[in-house]
């Protein structure tokens, strides 16, 4: 327990966060690539065909992992927003602002692939069904967090705190928005074809590539987030000693190797 606590505190300070996570970047990227390649080959070529939807169901291998990530990352944005706002942790600010862009990208992927699935399934690219609509609103929430941060360019720390506030407000509202949207569709339309629910993936050969892809997107998220968080910390702390030390140490590490 003590060790875990110590690790947590270490991650809370920008220099050690930078030092520790530097070692994680490459493995995460490699894992993401390996899992993506395996998951997609397995899913697109070897998973059995769905008896109802035919080959078109293979879109879930990119659509569903992206949808999971879009919500998972917003939860991280919200929680690190709370940490940034209440405890003013610099690392939490970095994690929040580094997570928002990749979360927005996953949300956009979810929407686009959902549209590409909707065309053969519903006969139209866009249908105001509950999932699509709440996903679109989720995209607006991401844009709000990113927008206020980039609009407020005088003081990045103040901007991060305002963005954290926006993220927290969004986190509180997200359940209400989801509930109201689901309620709205249940009243105005019959239930539309569900992309996941009805066909029900039970076959392990279908589930395996899906889970592998879910892991792949998680690894890529960690890579992208840590990389952006490091950039964020280097930028906001560029006049601090540890930044200079960290970047010069990299140099001295290389020189003896090159000399010998």
């Amino acid at each position, binding site marked *: 327990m003590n060790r875990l606590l110590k690790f947590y505190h270490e991650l809370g300070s920008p220099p050690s966060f930078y030092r520790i996570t530097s070692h994680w970047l490459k493995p995460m990227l490699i894992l993401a690539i390996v899992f993506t390649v395996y998951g997609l080959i397995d899913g697109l070529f070897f998973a059995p065909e769905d008896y109802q939807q035919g080959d078109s169901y293979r879109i879930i291998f990119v659509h569903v992992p992206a949808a999971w990530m879009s919500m998972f990352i917003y939860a991280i944005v919200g929680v690190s927003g709370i940490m940034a706002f209440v405890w003013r942790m610099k690392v939490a600010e970095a994690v929040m602002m580094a997570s928002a862009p990749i979360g927005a990208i996953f949300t956009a992927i979810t929407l686009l692939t959902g549209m590409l699935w909707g065309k053969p399934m519903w006969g139209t690219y866009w249908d105001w069904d509950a999932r699509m609509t709440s996903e679109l*609103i989720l995209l*607006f929430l991401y844009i709000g967090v990113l927008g*206020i941060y980039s609009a407020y360019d005088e003081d990045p720390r103040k901007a991060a705190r*305002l963005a954290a*506030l926006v993220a927290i407000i*969004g986190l509180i509202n997200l359940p209400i928005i989801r509930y109201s*949207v689901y309620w709205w569709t249940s009243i105005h339309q019959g239930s539309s074809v569900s992309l996941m629910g009805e066909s029900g993936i039970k076959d392990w050969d279908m589930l395996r590539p899906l889970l592998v892809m879910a892991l792949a997107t998680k690894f890529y998220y960690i890579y992208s987030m840590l990389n952006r968080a490091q950039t964020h910390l280097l930028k906001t702390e560029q006049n601090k000693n540890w930044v200079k030390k960290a970047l010069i140490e990299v140099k001295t590490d290389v020189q003896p190797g090159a000399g010998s």
Partner: protein
Amino acid sequence: MRFGALVKRDVLVSWRKKSNIYQPLVFQLLIVTMFPLGLGAGAQTLAKIAPAVVWILALLSTLITLENIFKDDYEDGSMDVYVLSGMSLPLAALSKATAHWLTTGIPVILFAPVIGVLMHLPEQSYGVLLLSLLLATPIFSLLGTVGSALIVNIKNGGMLLSVLIMPLLSPVLIFGAGAVLETTLGNSALGHLLLLLGCTILTLTLAPIAAAAAIKVNLE
């Protein structure tokens, strides 16, 4: 006491400016003219979309006034005075919202039946229309104080303000416009109105705190 004084001052300022009060109404009138022009003037066509149009116009016309709730106070230093005077910030935010509701919300509610008539809204819907707007306009003003406090330091923040509070307003629109729609179909709107009331109470308790937090960050 201070709450009342602050509300009174803000209402007076808006009243002297006048444009704050009639701007949303003129905006509604301009936009509502465009619907028959673009859609054809058939009473049936208009009546079908009337609940949504009346509601969305009320929302949009309020939206254009929100940017300025805190702007003047921030620029002339009154905001610092609120903080220095030891007044509780959520209370200050609540008084700003109250003043905004009195000068924008009430005119919008009173004007909604006019838009309803122009859109051929069926007669049985006016009661619920007024009631739903009575519940919803405080939400507009309260969320407006949050949004306005967030963007107070940003130039041309109007667009950003819309992006920030549109997702928060979507449940309000669903329940509010839904209530009016139900009455046009001859159904009871009670469920919608109760959910809307829930939103109003929730916003009333949380929005002043959020607005106060945003003010604090901006003044640090």
